């Protein structure tokens, strides 16, 4: 800087400005990391880290879901039911259904019965390999514990994290 006296009447504060530059540098780094986290799926809906699976992929029940979801948005929970034909009875845990709203299930099963801890559905399978997709809307924030199972068969547990 020049050694001449400054005649300018200005609210300049170099020390504060340096802090602001540091804040901007940190902020930009955080912004890049946030976008990277979003790409990886940490902010919900897709991405490598968000894709979750539960159950044996060759077993009678295999579930694919999103680990990170957003409150107010929908995500898909896909059930792969293998090895049985005819009437397949499966259930979804009731506490999970209290925190989410199932918009649709494709193909549509019939609700067979509602029990204290679970809702039982039945679907007619024409082949031994059936895939059902639950379109689930997440209405609350926080950790959502879910359990899905086959009546007289295995069940799987999974956890979704619903963010703002």
């Amino acid at each position, binding site marked *: 800087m020049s050694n001449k006296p400054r005649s*300018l009447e200005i609210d*300049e*504060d170099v020390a*504060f400005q340096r802090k602001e530059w540091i804040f*901007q540098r940190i*902020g930009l780094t955080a*912004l890049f990391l946030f976008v990277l986290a979003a790409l990886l799926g940490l902010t919900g809906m897709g991405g490598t880290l968000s894709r979750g699976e539960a159950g044996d992929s060759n077993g009678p029940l295999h579930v694919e879901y999103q680990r990170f979801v957003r409150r107010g948005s929908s995500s898909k929970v896909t059930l792969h039911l293998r090895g049985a034909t005819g009437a397949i009875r499966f259930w979804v845990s009731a506490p999970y259904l209290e925190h989410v709203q199932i918009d649709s299930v494709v193909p549509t099963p019939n609700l067979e019965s509602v029990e204290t801890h679970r809702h039982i559905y039945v679907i007619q399978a024409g082949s031994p390999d059936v895939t059902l997709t639950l379109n689930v809307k997440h209405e609350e924030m926080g950790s959502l514990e879910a359990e899905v199972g086959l009546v007289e068969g295995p069940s799987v547990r999974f956890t979704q994290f619903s963010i703002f």
Partner: protein
Amino acid sequence: MDTVLRTAAVYIFLLVIFRISGKRSLSQITTFDFILLLIISEATQQALVGNDFSIVNTVVVVASLVVLDLTFSWMENRWTTFGRVVGSLPVVVVEYGRLLEDRAKREGVTLPEILTAGRETHGLERLEQFKYAILERHGGISVVPAEDSR
């Protein structure tokens, strides 16, 4: 209540984002910047109103934004430090015909931009004709010409 909280969250988020991006981010709006601004406003609109397209919800959003802005303006005037944090400070980038390179670089101001400001506002031809160039809080460059250049 949800709408007011959403609005406050979006307001503060935008404030932080534009403070991080620096004074110059949208000071000179190119055609692409203008489109970007429209996309940002469209994206935030979704977060502000959610799925409720009622007139009451819109009124709550607009009223909340105005109240927030007035509150922030009052706080900026009331507390100097808060004003600096929210609105930044002007920075001298040229002093007696010399570019203060470190400051200009950190603020993302280039010499051609400073020369342009000098030409536009005072018809200055060379950097030596500048007494000061100041990057203002709003991101614009104001120029004080040297006495002998007038």
